[in-house]
């Protein structure tokens, strides 16, 4: 009675594997569905970023907190409104970064 070794298991597993499947027209079927790739243009992304920034600016420009934050920022004073606004911007940036990294990992 010989003990079964790792090499025996490997050899048996390899023997039980049928190997590559024969083509049998598979590649031709795949190539029928392959279409030429379109060049991805970057202008929609840039345009959307600008539109987003503009919309944010328009919606926040009437806010007293926003105005106070900018006034404090330009005057070099770290008021509560300046701090809150910057903290919110930093938090949103981190969220966007996390989302981008998660999406990149998924792809």
């Amino acid at each position, binding site marked *: *009675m*010989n*003990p*079964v*070794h*790792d090499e*025996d*298991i*490997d050899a*048996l*597993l*390899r*023997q*039980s*594997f*049928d*190997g*590559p*499947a*024969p*083509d049998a027209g*598979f*590649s031709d*079927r*795949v*190539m029928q*569905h*392959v279409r*030429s*790739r379109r060049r991805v243009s970057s202008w929609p992304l840039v345009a959307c970023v600008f539109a987003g920034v503009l919309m944010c600016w328009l919606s926040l420009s009437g806010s007293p907190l926003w105005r106070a934050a900018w006034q404090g920022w330009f005057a070099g004073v770290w008021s509560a409104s300046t701090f809150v606004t910057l903290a919110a911007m930093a938090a949103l940036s981190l969220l966007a970064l996390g989302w981008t990294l998660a999406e990149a990992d998924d*792809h």
Partner: protein
Amino acid sequence: MTCVADSAAEARIDQALVARALLGNDRRAFEQLVRRHQGMVRAQLCRLLHGDAAAADDLAQETFLLAWRKLDQFRSEARFSTWLYRIAYACFLQMCRTKSWAARNAQDDDAMEELPMPAPAMDLRMDLTRAMQHLSTGEQTVLLHCVQLGLSHEEAAYVLSMPLGTVKTHATRGKAKLKTWLSAWQNAAGEEHVQ
């Protein structure tokens, strides 16, 4: 040594074909890549799908179409074949998330649980196949990639998106279980032979 050199040469050919496919949007270069790798990708998927060749072909087609669309994301950090296995495995997982296939697969698993363990009188190859089906899904998947498809532990970890330690654990445990079952088979077969 020759095997390593062959593997490096194959990898260089794949890289050249990828570069041609990307730079000139060359469908013929991609067709060569499909012809070179379809056999192993379909074999991988067929094993993952418990021998369902039609479903494996559908997933393999999806894999190659995805590879064509995402070819610019191939960074040559891994071999092209390993990159394809990773896409194929991701497609397989996506398919498992759909209700119909998962339900059917669960029924198959239940039926498999009811099967007796390898009987000594049966052919060793059939017993090995049956013993494999008694391993956990992780162990089966790791042994398929590491032993049958010939990937290193690191490559298997990349394909399966699994920590390297987990891959090694699954491989060791899977082989240990198979060794135990096949030793029992060998004992029983030996006794039968003596009688």
